[in-house]
């Protein structure tokens, strides 16, 4: 529900007040791409969202072995394929934020969807987070193919700045996830024998009344 409401809030925001945080992506009156003189990069990213997301998703799942990548791409049941569906949901949300303006509290749940998984998979930190940066590559190579790069160079820099902003948040989330894993490990070791120690009075007896500090318990 949380996810759905955050997502619909973003979709709503997309139609209500689209803007880049830097404000550098203003409509470019001199743009002359494909017979759409007033089109800017934001419009382009909106119009081509489906295709770009597909490329981005493909790049991300290609980080997995070939057999796994095929499964992550093809299996549509989110319960049979939680990794693929989480990555897709996460990328969709992050993309909307990059296009319409990054708001920390709104992009975080989407980043979390992807990073929480990759933080415990067989990736180095760099590998786990490289998916954020690959959006730049995907957009850039697409614009290059279509010959739009020179015309939107400035807009592209603004978009890349937005991606960098997302990347910085991604570092935080990644660390939170890793720290959580270590914390869980410590907690589990403590709980395993907590009742025994409690019974042996090795733990301060008033712990149950909540008088003891965290350290003491």
């Amino acid at each position: 529900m949380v996810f759905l409401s955050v997502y619909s809030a973003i979709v709503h925001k997309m139609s209500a007040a689209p803007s880049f945080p830097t404000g550098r992506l203003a409509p470019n009156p001199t743009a002359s791409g494909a017979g759409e003189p007033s089109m800017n990069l934001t419009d382009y990213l909106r119009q081509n969202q489906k295709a770009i997301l597909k490329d981005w998703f493909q790049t991300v799942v290609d980080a997995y072995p070939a057999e796994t990548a095929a499964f992550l791409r093809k299996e549509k049941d989110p319960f049979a394929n939680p990794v693929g569906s989480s990555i897709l949901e996460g990328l969709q949300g992050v993309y909307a934020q990059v296009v319409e303006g990054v708001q920390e509290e709104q992009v975080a749940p989407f980043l979390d969807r992807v990073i929480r998984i990759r933080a415990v998979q067989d990736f180095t930190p760099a590998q786990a987070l490289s998916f954020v940066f690959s959006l730049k590559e995907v957009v850039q190579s697409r614009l290059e193919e279509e010959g739009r790069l020179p015309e939107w160079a400035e807009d592209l820099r603004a978009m890349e700045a937005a991606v960098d902003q997302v990347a910085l948040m991604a570092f935080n989330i990644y660390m939170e996830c890793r720290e959580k894993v270590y914390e869980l490990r410590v907690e589990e070791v403590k709980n395993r024998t907590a009742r025994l120690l409690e019974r042996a009075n090795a733990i301060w007896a008033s712990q149950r009344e909540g008088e003891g500090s965290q350290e003491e318990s």
Partner: protein
Amino acid sequence: MAKVPKADELAKVNHRPPQTPWTETPVEFRPGTFCYGAKPKNLEVVGLPNPRDWNPTDEDWKLPDDWKDITIKGMKDRLDKFRTFKLFMDICVRCGACADKCHFFIGSGDPKNMPVLRAELIRSIYRKYFTGSGKILSKYAGARALTEQVIKEWFYYFYQCSECRRCSVFCPYGIDTAEVTIMARELLNELGCTIDWTAGPVANCYMTGNHLGIQPHAFKDMIEFFVDEIEEVTGVRVEPTFNRKGAEVLFITPSGDVFADPGTYTLMGYMMLFHEIGLDYTWSTYASEGGNFGFFTSHEVMKRLNAKMYAEAKRLGVKWILGGECGHMWRVVNQYMDTMNGPADFLEVPKSPITGTVFENAKSTKMVHIAEFTADLIRHGKLKLDPSRNDNKIVTFHDSCNPARGMGLFEEPRYVLKHVCNHFHEMPEGTIREKTFCCGAGSGLNTDEYMEMRMRGGLPRANAVRYVHEKHGVNMLTTICAIDRAVFPALMDYWVPGVDVTGLHELVANALVMKGEKKRTTDLRYEPLPGMEDEEDDDV
């Protein structure tokens, strides 16, 4: 000045695995993805081979000099002895139906966790040494030589299978990959390559009767501690007995419920229920463990540890055995006990002294699952229940792999749940009942050093919980397995914060209206019952 790489250059990381065939890609032991090797003292206690100090990250695993002969001979013995093993080595057509059904594959994305490929790790050796085509055509027939690297690979991946059997549900040939894992682990055990998280509990259980090695007086002391806690919450003093000869029923449950939350609340639930119905039962301080980590070691060790249940039942002269909420205990009881250590002709076919119901399904093993027992009590109106006491809990139910796929126990726990709480929601079809996803830490993998891998393996289950958490506000995950109760708190904390974990009989005990009880203001966790929040404040 040094060249500073640009962001897009930094992002160009080659995260593709090496482009070598799977047979030639060595495993890498990264912390968090493997369990520690068995300590020598734990192997010595039960006489298992090659006790030594070692760690999977060591280059030299200190295998016996004739390790290769031991392994090949071990395979031959088992191929001759176990027809299933022979069949499972021969009949797989690699259709791929199982490939994407393993929770470890789904969560990790590692193709060697596809059940078909995991089995292929040992099949390739079988072909090389036991089939004509493999001997002659070698790798062209899918065969490969046995090397130390293969042993390391077996250790890595066969301790990455939780023997949950989900894949076997989908196999058109009925290949039970769990049995392949069981065989592989037996072979690894012959070389002393087992994990300490199973070897330690096995040694403790063999010496003192339970996984933690708690001696009889301390075990009794712990149970009595809960008597005080129950009295504090309910005002009723229950009176358990220990090693009492002539009791009608022997009660056995996993020792995890005695020593670690939240299993402890489930244990209090059992005691309250038995007191309320006046069950003539006793605990044994020797058969003080329902779990059997011998099952994750070898048939022989499993048999030795299991024998104490019948031995205690015989010594105490009980009529039948009642078993608590445990996972693999029930697989051992339901599938192996009767032929391993039975038949237990000295016991009677279990009959509920309260309802008169005869448990025909347990006619052979003489051991009844507590969910069946309680469901029968409720069905006959023998319990006074107030489910509104659990109204602050929005509950879902996790089918533990072994009771679900090992004995088909689907309806009874749900029947009980629906009578003791008002808010119950199923997780999506495809993740429950016979298709249930494992907790990611069964078969002796529930150790803390394995946390990262557990998070991978538990992802599919957590993902389904997340769905009901967001859709229905589920805040309590119910389960009838002690390993589940031990590992789900960490799994939920990582993937679905806000969902707590409980055993079935903790909820039963909350709802149970006991004769002579005081006005209940809290549940067993000392948390206020719905509507009693203010009264709690007044007490403090």
